[in-house]
């Protein structure tokens, strides 16, 4: 998977693309944390438009992002979730913890 970061006005946009699975999870987590620590945003937007496959590794990634942003008193928005990834998030009830649009 790949992460493309864009930061402006205390908002950090991370565009995730490719397959989110356990194989790439550790690097993705590190990349996400580095991006958040560098930008210190008030709002983090995870754009999943380019995600071609996601399993529960993506849940761990989103929940970690949420924890990180709570430490900064900021918020997380997950958007443009493709249908397969959406079913994974729904099965785990992630929508109760994180805003998904």
């Amino acid at each position, binding site marked *: 998977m790949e992460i493309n970061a864009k930061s402006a006005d205390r908002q950090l946009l991370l565009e995730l693309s490719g397959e989110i699975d356990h*194989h790439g999870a550790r690097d993705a987590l590190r990349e996400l944390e580095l991006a958040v620590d560098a930008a210190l945003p008030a709002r983090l937007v995870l754009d999943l438009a380019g995600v071609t496959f996601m399993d529960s590794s993506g*849940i761990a990634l989103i929940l970690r992002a949420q924890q990180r942003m709570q430490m900064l008193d900021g918020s997380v928005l997950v958007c443009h979730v493709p249908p*397969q990834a959406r079913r994974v998030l729904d*099965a*785990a009830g992630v929508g109760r913890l994180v805003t998904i649009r």
Partner: protein
Amino acid sequence: MKTRASNEVTLEFPSRSSNESFARAAAASFAAQMDPTLNELEDIKTAVSEAVTNAIVHGYPDSIGKVVVKVRICPENTLEVTVRDYGRGIPDVDKARQPMFTTGGAERSGMGFTIMESFMDRLTVRSVPGKGTSVVMKKRLAPRLKAAK
């Protein structure tokens, strides 16, 4: 009792995480002959990804071992996927199946079994500590009208 399969394939590979994408793609590709919907195909791919990841992460936490994935096409348009490892085993299967329970650390969510249960129709987990774990998942695909020739 084992149901007779009209077709089946067995994949065997070492527990390297780079094989996760191969295993789910291969299982989905074999299932394609059942003429599944795109949603069904994605469900199968997702469930296989979770089961194979479990085998790799929990079966062999500090070693590389053998993972076997068997995909069978059974009567009544039912797909059966078995993921077997010969690793450490799960001491308490019921606990492991609880949502959010994980021994896998920060990059795991503890939702693997929950996803397998919700994406497939039946999930059976057998495990013997020190001998390994077998996960059997079944999904009955929706009957589809054959295209008129």
